[in-house]
């Protein structure tokens, strides 16, 4: 562990999440975000050694669609590039890993994709087994509802509890200008919403939207050169679980739990009592409870603020949603979170996830200080 290089987030930009941008293609949305991120850290493209992007071709509707992003990421003269068919939070992990090799000191990590051009619900159906799961019509809403049902049965919580979680996220998210949904709402109003797939109401599901995101990472002393308030990566790990839904306990996130334990160990912290807030990629109130449980966060106690940004229940730009969590932690800990600032925060957790029912998870511990050696 002591041989790890210290790496920090030094910049972050995103477009406000919208349901549909009528004027720009996915890469036309990404271009100003990359330019702004480079401007934020005060370098031109030559100041960046490496780039990783996150998108999914099925959502783009183009095989190898990700290569379009090369034209807006500063790929000339040629430089090393990596693409992940995963959320940007995982892309950031691979950028961090590349920096660990010592080959590069700086990297940009981009998330892009237009959810409005295709049909994400169909795409995520095709992710499932083609013999019986996909033909039965399972999609992310129905698999999340199967998970929610099992969780409610195991824990005995009910609809009031789920509505309260959504209401809390919506209240927090009202002051975040990048959110697609910025209206507070009451538990009662949320419970007026019809069932999407019982026990999940439509109001318990995230607003799927589109954005473009760019995170800048830098190692060691480079971080201080590029940013007055670098936010250091103190610990990180990611874990993937089985694809077969029936082979997992859907009410628990074993992968998130193991990733969290490893990230805490790398950060040299005992657990979430050493952090002030957590940004979680939870797309339903039940997922939020499952992730909290895996990370050791007790939602009944208020010592860790969960999703002060409003979380994915206020904006879910697929492929960027996890990168937004890292960006939000950066904004908070570098003093750029405006009204939604969590007072006194010097360390936080960012969680990313992908796949049905939290199949893949990545957990980050980030702080204003370097990782304890």
């Amino acid at each position, binding site marked *: 562990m002591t041989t790890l290089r210290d790496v920090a987030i030094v910049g972050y930009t995103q477009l406000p999440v919208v349901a549909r941008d009528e004027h720009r*293609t996915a890469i036309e949305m990404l271009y100003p975000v990359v330019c702004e991120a480079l401007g934020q850290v005060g370098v031109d493209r030559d100041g960046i050694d490496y780039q990783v992007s996150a998108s999914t071709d099925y959502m783009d509707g183009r095989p190898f669609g990700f290569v379009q992003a090369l034209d807006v990421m500063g790929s000339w003269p040629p430089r090393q590039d990596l693409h992940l068919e995963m959320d940007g939070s995982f892309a950031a992990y691979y950028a961090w890993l590349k920096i660990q090799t010592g080959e590069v000191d700086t990297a940009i990590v981009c998330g892009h994709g*237009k959810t409005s051009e295709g049909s994400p619900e169909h795409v995520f159906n095709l992710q499932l087994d083609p013999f019986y799961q996909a033909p039965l019509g399972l999609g992310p809403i129905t698999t999340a509802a199967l998970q929610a049902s099992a969780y409610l049965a195991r824990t005995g919580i009910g609809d009031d509890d789920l509505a309260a979680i959504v209401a809390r996220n919506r209240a927090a998210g009202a002051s975040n200008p990048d959110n697609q949904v910025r209206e507070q709402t009451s538990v009662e109003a949320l419970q007026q919403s019809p069932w999407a797939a019982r026990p999940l109401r439509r109001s318990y599901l995230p607003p799927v939207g589109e954005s473009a995101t760019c995170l800048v990472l830098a190692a060691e002393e480079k971080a201080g050169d590029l940013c007055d308030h670098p936010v250091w990566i103190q610990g990180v790990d990611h874990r993937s679980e089985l694809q077969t839904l029936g082979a997992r306990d859907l009410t628990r996130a074993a992968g998130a739990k193991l990733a969290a334990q490893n990230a805490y160990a790398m950060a040299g912290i005992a657990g979430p009592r050493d952090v002030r807030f957590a940004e979680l990629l939870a797309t339903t109130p039940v997922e939020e409870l499952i992730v909290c449980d895996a990370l050791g966060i007790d939602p009944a106690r208020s010592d860790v603020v969960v999703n002060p940004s409003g979380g994915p229940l206020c904006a879910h730009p697929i492929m960027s949603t996890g990168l937004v969590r890292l960006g939000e932690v950066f904004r908070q800990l570098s003093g750029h979170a405006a009204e939604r600032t969590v007072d006194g925060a010097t360390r936080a957790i960012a969680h990313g996830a992908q796949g049905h029912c939290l199949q893949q998870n990545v957990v980050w511990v980030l702080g204003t200080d370097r990782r304890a050696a």
Partner: protein
Amino acid sequence: MSQPPVDPVKYIETTVRLPYHYVAGDHRARYLRALKDRKILGSKCSKTGKVFVPPINNSAESMAPCDELVEVADRGVVTTFCIVNIPVVGRDVELPYVAASVALDGADISIFALVQECKADEARMGMRVEAVWKPDGEREGSHEDISHFRPTGEPDAAPETYLNRL
């Protein structure tokens, strides 16, 4: 269970149908609309002055924005070509045919073009060609508004005028 199954189901058929509604983007939307009026638009790099056709938002090379739209000619020069003898997916063209890169006058990069009204063995680099537009009333604001390119009969262009516009 020890016996092999009688008439086993060996395959399943899955038809994947995923519709998409692509946003053209403001630059490309204007470009497509201009084709209806027999005009070809490019965009100019604010840093290098290079003109890209079809218009792009930013230069991939310089990273600078290309906000200004400019009209380029509907004629230009063949910068490279090949003679195609194999059928191509999605095209119904008599074989062999000439597929060419054409640098339009006023543009710094080439577009892909089908050259007809020209014997395949007469195609050459430097040959001057012009767009043959679909008749008025039949153009819809798509790439198919240009039926094809054909030789103009002008003298060939000198290599130094097009070799950096491949």
